[in-house]
């Protein structure tokens, strides 16, 4: 049952703190167990990635060196000494997975940062200035949206040659169109509001109006699309890795542990199962979290 108006007012009057949109959103988010689970999982991945990365900086590896080849210990099943088994070169799978975790997170965040920046820029210019600028930019968005995204990314990465930076840039450059569309829609409606008209009337320049008055009010849905975008980017990167166009070995990534392992799938199931589970867990965490934020922002879903 959604709380009625009177209840909300009473609650606001009784609470010692003044009403805040952000706190209200956070309270809504906290009630959503799935979304909170996702957030905790994301935090967990962050802690792992940062710890492993800072230790690796001092050449300290745990539980073992991810690139230490030991041909006498090839394809060992999970055991006490190798918790997730070893791969075809006798390397410890758990260490390789731990040392690959920051790759997935970095690809996710950097490509989304690129996509969101382009999307917000094009969306706000288009929505604020309208007219022919809007027409030209939105036709360009239409064109970009019609290409089959994964095949397009695959083609471009294959032409440029695989690589960590290229993968992030290509994913970023091909996934901004959705953001551009809804930022434009937000801004089209925001720019009609009185506070924007007031800013115009006192002679504020366009850049200031967009950055100070309009954009901050359109940021909440951008956060949702960014969180879901990270999930999509991690999944895309793993798909590219799988087809051999992702981050290249010997750098361990979840995608390429899986790809190398698939040749031994009937002898060493652990090489396929564990990295796949890790990818699933990370993508799931970001998806749950993103949907949780979306629900928290939607007043019709209050319970």
């Amino acid at each position, binding site marked *: 049952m959604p709380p009625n108006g009177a209840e909300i007012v009473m609650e606001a009057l009784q609470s010692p703190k003044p009403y805040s949109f952000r706190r209200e959103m956070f309270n809504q988010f906290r009630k959503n167990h799935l979304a909170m689970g996702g957030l905790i999982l994301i935090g967990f991945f962050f802690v792992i990635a940062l710890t492993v990365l800072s230790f690796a900086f001092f050449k300290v590896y745990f539980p073992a060196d991810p690139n230490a080849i030991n041909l006498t210990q090839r394809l060992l099943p999970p055991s006490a000494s190798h918790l997730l088994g070893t791969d075809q070169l006798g390397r410890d799978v758990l260490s390789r997975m731990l040392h690959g975790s920051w790759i997935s997170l970095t690809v996710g965040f950097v490509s989304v940062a690129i996509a969101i920046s382009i999307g917000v820029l094009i969306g706000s210019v288009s929505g604020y200035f309208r007219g022919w600028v809007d027409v030209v930019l939105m036709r360009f968005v239409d064109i970009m949206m019609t290409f089959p995204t994964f095949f397009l990314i*695959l*083609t471009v990465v294959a032409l440029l040659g695989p690589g960590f930076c290229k993968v992030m840039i290509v994913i970023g450059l091909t996934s901004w169109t959705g953001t551009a569309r809804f930022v434009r829609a937000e801004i089209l409606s925001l720019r009609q509001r009185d506070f924007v008209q007031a800013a115009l009337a006192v002679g504020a320049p366009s850049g200031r109006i967009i950055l100070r008055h309009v954009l901050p009010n359109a940021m909440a849905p951008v956060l949702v699309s960014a969180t879901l975008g990270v999930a999509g980017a991690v999944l895309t990167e793993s798909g590219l890795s799988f087809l051999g166009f992702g981050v290249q070995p010997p750098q361990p990534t979840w995608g390429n542990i899986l790809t190398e392992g698939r040749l031994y799938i009937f002898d060493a199931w652990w090489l396929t199962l564990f990295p796949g589970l890790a990818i699933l867990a990370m993508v*799931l965490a970001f998806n749950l979290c993103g949907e949780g934020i979306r629900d928290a922002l939607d007043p019709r879903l209050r319970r």
Partner: protein
Amino acid sequence: MFGYIIRRLIQTIPVLFGITVISFAMIHIAPGSPIGQALDPKVPKKVVEQWEKNFHLNEPMLVQYGLWLKDLSSGQLKSFKDGRPVLEKIVERLPATIWLNVVATLISFAIAIPMGIFSATHRYSLPDHIFTFFAFVGISVPSFWLAYMLILLLVQGFGIPVLGVQTFGLAALPPLASLADRAWHLFLPAVIFAVGEIAVLSRYMRGSMLEVVREDYIRTAKAKGLSEDQVNYHHALRNALLPIVTIFGFLIPSLIGGSVIIESIFAWPGIGQLGYQSVLSRDYPTIMTLNTIAAFLVLLGNLAADVLYAWVDPRISYS
């Protein structure tokens, strides 16, 4: 309505133009000459020149673009790899991909729609929470990993063959058994394909149903004393299904993009596999054509979805 379709078709012309420009420009972002990348360096210079002439690579960029468009539209464009017309190669791959998509779509509709309705009518119940969670898993799972896990389970656990269009060495089976064999080889990739679609579609159906249940006419139906089931299935469902119709339009594009990975894993001789093979062998004419056709299909799909929606829902008018 007719006027609307005409207007939409006119609007697609600049978009279509942009699509061909980007498809064409894409291959020129790669360093070096496209031929140099595709051919063995040991090939004599004369042969390379002949190739460049055949593919108009010695012309200025603008002329190349024009000739490419001409070749593409007249079906003359030839593959770098075997010199066969690209369109012919695509058309012969089409049936396998269409079969895969049709079966996957049928599976996903058959499961997702009842699932979504149940979730909406039993909102916040335990099954709803379970469906919701599994929908999220379905969206998040890497399809290639799921495919390998399934192959591992079936082949290792039960010794059932799964790759290709039919079991190797069994082509001479009696017709009925052969048909069953083929159907089984189609079923597995289709299921993997359907997992993601089920996840998205069931959430969509749930949302659509919950949207409709809020309407006044539903309250009226309930106030008249109709039973829950009557209201849900006779009054609400009919309108809740309307937005689902538009999904058909969006399914066409996945014909190429969605199937690259799955077709490669299952050795399924469809368009996705052709796309991956041409990317690997840098067969530019095929890559460009596939991208153009895919984008063109998206345009058609969007138009079909809008028209279909207006046709099933009289509340929408496009005058």
